[in-house]
Every structure is written in structure tokens, then in C-alpha cells.
């Protein structure tokens, strides 16, 4: 009988935490945006977006370069090395750009958000804000949520662009694919609405999910040092799993049935 009780308790716990997460998000986002909150959001875009720029640029460049290198060795066997451009561009725009950006973002910015908010909770800064009649959801949570949702699609676009340039660097400048065919076959294949816009939509969905998980895990953390470390780990694990799972669903919806 005991294990049935356990299953029931776990289910209720899960549902309760979903409810708390949803309440936190609505409480943070349904607030009327204030001018001073835009300042705070800008500050958070700096922390979350600009400071993630280096890792995004470097990994985007190298992923584009590796794809060009691997693609070239296979395509050249078929005499189809001209198709290197669309191969690099499509895989970056449709899949790797949004997904790798989201994974890096979860590791680089999501864990930091969790730790920051978790520590604020542990040191009772959030309670002090409430004591001063400042709503911590609006003051602390909302700017971070918006910053995450705004920054990640921007990072994904930059990732794809720099990856395509990296592919050009390896494919054209080092391996000798014709520069004209690299760009022109790419242009003939890549479609703005189908490939670029769908990639951005994916990235917006990932941004909402990753930021939400990161902030909720911090806000809901057990206020001890152990609890915060656990919450940070959970942020990275859960958001990576959510991103990879959602990516399959989104790809099936966008490109699967045609």
C-alpha cells in the first residue's frame, strides 16, 4: 500500500510545482511594464545576453567549420561539394542554431539565474523586498524572464550567421569549394519563411522554456546551500531535456508533414 501512497504524493508534488511555476510566470509577466523595469531588463539583457556572446560566437564558428569539414569529405565523393553551402546553412538555421544556443544558454545563463535567485531567497532578500512592499516577482523575476526571452533568439541568429561564415572559411577558403556556388546554391535552397522564421520561432519557444525553468528552480529552491546546488543542477538537466524533446516536436510540426 505504501508505494501507492508514494506515487500519489509524487504526482501531487509535481502538479503543485507546475502550479507554482505557472503562478510565478503569470505574476511576473502580467504586471504592467514600468519605465524603471525597462532599465532593469536592459541590465539583465547585458548579464544574460551580452555576456553569453563570447561562448555563442566561438561555438557557432567552430560548429560551422566542423560541419563544412565533415560535409566536404562526404560530398566530394559524389562530386557534390557545391551543395556544402545549403547543407551548412539549413542544418544551422533549422536545428543546430536554436538547439545548441539553447543548450549553451541553459549552461551559461540559466544556471547563473537559478543560483542568483536561489541565493536571494536563501539570504531572504526576496522576503525583505516584500517587507518593503516591493513585489519581487515584478522587480526581480520579470526583468530576468524578459531578458531571457529577448536575448536567446538574438543569440541564435548570431550563432547561425557566424556558423555559415565559419563554413565558408573552411569550405571555400581552405578546401577550395567555389565561393559562387557556396552562396548561390544556398540562396536557391534556403527559404526565409520556412527555414529562417521557423528557426527563430523554435528559438523563442526554447527561450521561454529555459528561462522559465531556470527562474522557477531558483525561486522554488530549498533555501540552503545544498538546495541551491541541487536547483542549479536541475536547471541544466531539465532545460536540456526539455529543449531536446521540444525540438523533436517542433521539427515534426514544422517540417515533418508537408
Amino acid at each position, binding site marked *: 500500500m505504501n508505494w501507492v501512497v508514494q506515487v500519489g504524493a509524487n504526482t501531487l508534488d509535481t502538479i503543485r510545482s507546475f502550479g507554482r511555476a505557472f503562478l510565478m510566470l503569470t505574476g511576473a509577466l502580467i504586471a504592467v511594464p514600468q519605465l524603471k523595469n525597462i532599465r532593469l531588463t536592459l541590465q539583465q539583457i*547585458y548579464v544574460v545576453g*551580452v555576456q553569453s556572446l563570447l561562448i555563442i560566437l566561438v561555438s557557432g564558428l567552430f560548429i560551422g567549420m566542423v560541419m563544412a569539414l565533415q560535409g566536404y569529405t562526404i560530398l566530394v565523393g559524389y562530386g557534390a561539394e557545391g551543395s556544402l553551402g545549403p547543407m551548412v546553412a539549413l542544418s544551422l*538555421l533549422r536545428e543546430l542554431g536554436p538547439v545548441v544556443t539553447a543548450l549553451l544558454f541553459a549552461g551559461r545563463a540559466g544556471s547563473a539565474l537559478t543560483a542568483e535567485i536561489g541565493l536571494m531567497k536563501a539570504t531572504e532578500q526576496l522576503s525583505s523586498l516584500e517587507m518593503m512592499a516591493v513585489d519581487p516577482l515584478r522587480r526581480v523575476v520579470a526583468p530576468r524572464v524578459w531578458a531571457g526571452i529577448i536575448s536567446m533568439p*538574438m543569440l541564435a541568429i548570431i550563432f547561425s550567421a557566424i556558423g555559415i561564415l565559419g563554413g565558408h572559411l573552411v569550405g571555400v577558403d581552405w578546401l577550395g569549394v567555389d565561393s559562387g556556388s557556396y552562396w548561390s546554391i544556398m540562396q536557391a535552397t534556403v527559404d526565409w519563411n520556412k527555414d529562417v522564421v521557423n528557426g527563430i520561432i523554435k528559438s523563442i519557444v526554447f527561450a521561454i522554456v529555459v528561462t522559465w525553468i531556470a527562474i522557477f528552480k531558483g525561486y522554488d529552491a530549498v533555501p540552503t546551500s545544498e538546495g541551491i546546488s541541487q536547483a542549479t543542477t536541475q536547471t541544466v538537466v531539465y532545460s536540456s531535456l526539455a529543449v531536446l524533446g521540444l525540438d523533436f516536436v517542433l521539427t515534426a510540426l514544422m517540417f515533418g508533414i508537408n
Partner: protein
Amino acid sequence: MTTRKTELMVGFFVILTISATLLLAMKVVNQGFSDNESSYTLYAKFDNIGGLKARSAVKVGGVTVGRVESIYLDPEDFNPVVVLSLSQQYNNFPDTSSVAILTSGLLGEQYIGFQPGFAFDDFVTLADGDYIQDTKSALVLEDLIGQFLFSRDSE
């Protein structure tokens, strides 16, 4: 204090994003024949369209002048009808023009080769909604082999 530096860096971030978007829009994306450019529609009925797909190119002497808008089956005679969307820039093709389904390269994708007809003194141009009468279907390898064997048998 740090606000000014923050704003500067966020500004750089936004500019970097805009330039990345521009790179994607200008260099990566197909901008040859966009959908919002003014175009007119022609219809062509084939026996067999082979591997032609929607958005395949329509070319005159190698120059892309339009795209395949859609393909459907005529419910009465069960022949495929291809809807062509041609750029308004090229709107004076004679109605004696013909279309054929061709393949680019040995393994390339199929496209519509548009062959303008002779322009006589009193020629009629193809207008929006017209059917192109003279069509040549795609070559299907199995049909070719079948015809070859048949002609050998009858010899």
C-alpha cells in the same frame, strides 16, 4: 556608473543581431522570386509531371522567370494540372509558347522549361489564367525502357 557601459554593450549586441539578420536575409535566403512580387498565373496540363514539385523553377533559356505555384489533378480527365506563377516583368509571351518538364543535370531537380513561341504580327499574348496548350511531359525512365523494348520486339 555601470549603466552607461551596460547600455553600450547591449547596443552592440542589438547591432550585431541586426547585422546577422541582414546577412541571413541578403546572402543566405533565396530572394530571386519572392511571393509578394506582382505575378500572373498560367495553367499547363501534362500527362505526367515526373518529380516536379511546388516551388520548382520556371525557366526561359536558363533564366528563372517564375515558380510552380501548385499542382493538382484535373477531376474530369485525371491529368495533372500545373499552376505557374510568372513574374509580371515578363508578360508578353505569345500564346504559341510551349512548356516542357526538364531535369537540371543528370541527378538534378526538375524544372519547367518555357519555350516562347514565334511572335507573328498579330500574335496574342498569354494572359492571367490562360492554359498553355503545347506541353511536353517529364521523361520517366521506366516508360522509356518500355518503349525501347516494345520497338525492338516489333522489329
